[in-house]
C-alpha cells in the first residue's frame, strides 16, 4: 500500500533473531497478563473494564472542567500548572526555567509523551544534559533509537547489543551478563540522580480532585527523579486526567495487570506538590505541564475521541499478530501497535501514513484485552473510510475506488454476478489492485474456483 515501509517490514520478518525477541517478549507479557486477570483471582475484571471506560468517557467528555479542577488543586498545594499547545512551548518553558535556576542536568523517567515531542533532542540543542534513567530507555538513548514497545522499550535488543552499546558509550569492557549490565547502569545513573538539577517525569494519571500526579514504575528511577532533584516537572498529555483519587482503585488494578501481569507495579507514586516546608527532602518546586499537541483536535469526533482513554499498558501491542510480526519500529510514530494505528492518523492526518489503518487483519484481539475498552477495530474501519475519502478528494486512489464501485454494481445484479463468476472474474473486483492475485500467490497457493457454484448446484437440484 502507499507509503508502507515494505523494505524494513520484510527485513523484520526475515530476521529470525528479531522475530524470536518479539515473540518471546510478547508471549511472556501475554502469559503474565492472562494469569493476573483470571476469573478466580479477579472476578470483577470485566466490570472494572466497564467502570474504567465510563470514568474515562466522563472525564474526556468534560475535559475542560477537570483540567481546571486539577489546576486549582495543584496550585492549592503549592505547585504550578503550565499549559502548552505544542512541543515548542514545552521546550521553551523548560529552557527558561533551567536558565533562571542555572540548571544543567536533567534526569528523566520513562515517558511516552516526552518521546512524542522529542523532548531530549530539543533541550540538548541548548547545552542541557538530559539523561534517560529507565534502563531500557537509557540503552535506547545511548543507541539513538526510539522505543520499540510502550512498556518494554528495548525488547528488540539482546544482551549482546547492550554490551556493544555500553562499551561504545560508557567506555566499559564488553559485559554480557545482564545482572552486571544492570549494575553498570545503576552506578552510572546513580551519579546523575545525585547531581541532577531537574527531574522530569510523565504521568500515568493526573488526579483532578487532588491535583496529584500518579507515576507507576518498577525500577525506582521515577521515585529518584521525583525525590532527589530540587525541581520536579511532569510533562503529561491533557487526556491523563481522572476525576478522583478513589478512582485509582479501578485504574491501578487494571494497569499493572494488563501491562505486565503485576497486581501493582513495584512503585506507585502519588505526588501532589513540592515538599512541605518542614520536610527534609523532596522537590522545592513542582510543575505540571499539560500538553495538548493535537489532542484537542481528537476530541472533536465524539466516537474517535475514545482513543484518548488509553492508559498505555501495551496489552494491545502484545496481543496484536501484526505487531508481533513487524515489531515497533515499522510504525511511523513512537506509538506503535494497534493504539498507534488509531492515534497516529488522528494526530498527523490520515494522508500522512495512509497504509497504517489498513495494516490490521481486524482480528479484534486488541479490543478484547484493552483495559479501558477502546473499540480499536471499529476506529480502524472508520479511519480506513476517512483515508479513501481524503484520497478521493485529492483525486487519488481512483483505481481501487472504481474497482469497488464496479464490484458493488455487480453484486447487486445477481445475473451478472453469476455470469462474471463463471468467466473467472470473481476475484478481480475483490482484489482490486494490479496484481492482487500475484500478491496472494507470493505467499500461498491460489484456490481454484469450483466447477459448479452453489447457485448452480441448487438450480440443478430442483
Amino acid at each position, binding site marked *: *500500500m502507499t507509503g508502507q515501509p*515494505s523494505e524494513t*517490514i*520484510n527485513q523484520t*520478518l526475515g530476521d529470525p533473531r528479531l522475530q524470536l525477541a518479539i515473540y518471546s517478549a510478547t508471549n511472556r507479557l501475554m502469559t503474565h497478563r492472562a494469569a493476573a486477570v483470571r476469573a478466580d483471582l479477579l472476578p470483577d475484571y470485566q466490570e472494572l473494564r466497564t467502570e474504567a471506560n465510563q470514568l474515562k468517557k466522563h472525564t474526556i467528555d468534560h475535559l475542560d472542567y477537570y483540567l481546571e479542577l486539577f489546576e486549582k488543586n495543584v496550585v492549592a498545594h503549592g505547585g504550578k500548572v503550565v499549559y502548552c499547545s505544542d512541543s515548542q512551548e514545552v521546550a521553551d518553558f523548560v529552557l527558561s526555567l533551567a536558565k533562571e535556576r542555572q540548571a544543567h542536568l536533567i534526569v528523566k523517567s520513562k515517558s511516552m509523551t516526552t518521546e512524542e515531542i522529542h523532548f531530549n533532542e530539543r533541550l540538548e540543542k541548548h547545552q542541557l544534559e538530559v539523561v534517560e534513567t529507565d534502563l531500557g530507555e537509557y540503552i535506547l538513548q545511548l543507541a539513538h533509537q526510539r522505543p520499540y514497545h510502550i512498556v518494554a522499550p528495548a525488547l528488540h535488543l539482546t544482551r549482546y547489543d547492550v554490551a556493544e552499546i555500553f562499551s561504545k558509550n560508557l567506555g566499559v569492557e564488553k559485559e554480557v551478563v545482564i545482572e552486571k549490565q544492570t549494575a553498570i547502569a545503576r552506578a552510572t545513573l546513580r551519579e546523575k540522580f545525585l547531581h541532577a538539577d531537574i527531574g522530569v517525569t510523565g504521568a500515568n494519571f493526573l488526579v483532578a480532585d487532588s491535583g496529584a500526579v500518579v507515576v507507576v514504575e518498577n525500577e525506582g528511577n521515577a521515585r529518584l527523579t521525583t525525590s532527589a532533584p530540587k525541581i520536579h516537572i511532569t510533562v503529561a498529555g491533557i487526556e491523563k486526567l481522572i476525576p478522583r483519587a478513589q478512582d485509582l482503585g479501578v485504574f491501578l488494578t487494571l494497569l499493572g495487570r494488563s501491562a505486565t501481569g503485576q497486581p501493582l507495579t513495584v512503585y506507585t507514586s502519588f505526588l501532589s506538590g513540592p515538599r512541605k516546608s518542614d520536610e527534609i527532602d523532596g522537590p522545592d518546586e513542582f510543575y505540571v505541564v499539560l500538553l495538548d499537541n493535537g489532542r484537542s483536535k481528537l476530541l472533536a469526533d465524539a466516537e474517535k475521541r475514545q482513543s484518548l482513554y488509553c492508559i498505555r499498558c501495551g496489552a494491545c501491542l502484545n496481543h496484536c*499478530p*501484526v505487531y508481533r*510480526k*513487524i515489531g515497533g519500529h515499522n510504525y511511523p510514530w513512537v506509538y506503535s501497535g494497534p493504539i498507534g494505528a488509531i492515534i497516529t492518523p488522528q494526530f498527523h492526518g490520515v494522508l500522512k501514513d495512509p*497504509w497504517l*489503518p*489498513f*495494516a*490490521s*487483519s*481486524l*482480528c*479484534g*484481539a486488541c*479490543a*478484547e484485552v484493552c483495559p479501558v475498552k477502546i473499540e480499536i477495530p471499529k476506529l480502524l474501519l472508520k479511519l*480506513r*473510510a*476517512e*483515508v*479513501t*475519502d481524503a484520497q478521493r478528494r485529492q483525486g487519488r486512489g481512483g483505481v*481501487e*475506488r472504481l474497482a*469497488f*464501485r464496479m*464490484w*458493488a*454494481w*455487480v*453484486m*447487486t445484479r*445477481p445475473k451478472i*454476478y453469476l455470469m462474471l*463468476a463463471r468467466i473467472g472474474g*470473481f476475484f478481480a473486483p*475483490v*482484489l482490486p*489492485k494490479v496484481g492482487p492475485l500475484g*500478491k*496472494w500467490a*507470493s*505467499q*500461498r*497457493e*491460489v*484456490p*481454484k*474456483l*469450483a466447477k459448479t*457454484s*452453489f*447457485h448452480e*448446484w*441448487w438450480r440443478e437440484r430442483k
Partner: protein
Amino acid sequence: MKKRVSLFVTCIVDQVFPQVGIAMTQVLERLGFQVEFPPAQTCCGQPAFNSGYPDEAGTVARHFLNTFGESEYIVVPSGSCTSMLSHHYTEIFASDERMLALARGTSPRVWEFSQFLIEVVGVEDVGARFDGVVTYHDSCHALRELHIKDGPRKLLAKVQGLTLREMEAAEECCGFGGTFSVKFPEVSGGMARTKIDSILKTEAGTVVSIDSSCLMQIQGVIDRARLPIRTMHLAEVLAGR
C-alpha cells in the same frame, strides 16, 4: 409443518467452496428443516466495508436486506459474514432511518451455522461420523464479535470417531483479514505460518473452522509448504456419515 430456514451461503462458499453450502443443506435437512435458497443473493458487502468503502458496502448491504427481508432464520456458514450482517449493517446505515430499521429487524434473524444448531435447534449430536484427529481454529469475528467458542467444539465432540486436539494458539488470527491478505502479503503469510506451526504441534490431520475464508488462507499456505494437512469447514464434518 416443517420449519423453514434460508441459506445465505456467502460469495466465497458459492464460488470456491460450494461443498460447504451443500453440506450445510444436508445437515439442516436431516434435522427436519425445509431449506430455502433465495437465488438473488450475492455477497454481504464486507470486502468493501473493510477496505474503507462504506458507501459501496451499503449498496451491497441494501441488496442483501431486500433479498432476505422475509426470512425467519437466515443461516450462514461464516462467523465473519454473520457479524457483518448482524453487527455492522447498523453502523453502515446509522444515518438512514429506513434502512437502519430494516437492518435492526434482520439482525436477530441472522445465525452463524454452529450457533443456529446449538442455540436455535438445541442439538449437539447431529449423527455425524468422522475418522481422525482434528484441531479447531477459532475464527476471529466468530470468537470476538459473536462470542462463539464452545458451540463448534460441542458439535465436534459428538461426532463419532473424531478426536479433537486443541492447538495452543487456537485464538490467534490466521492472517487472512480480507484485502489485508493482499495489501500486506508478507505479514499475512507470516501470520498464517505461525498459525500452522501451532497446528502442526497437535499432529492433527485436519483443521476445522466455521469460516471458509480462514481455511482458504490456511490451506493456501499448507499447499505451498506441501504439508499433509487438510482443512474442512465444520459443516462438512457434520455432514459426514
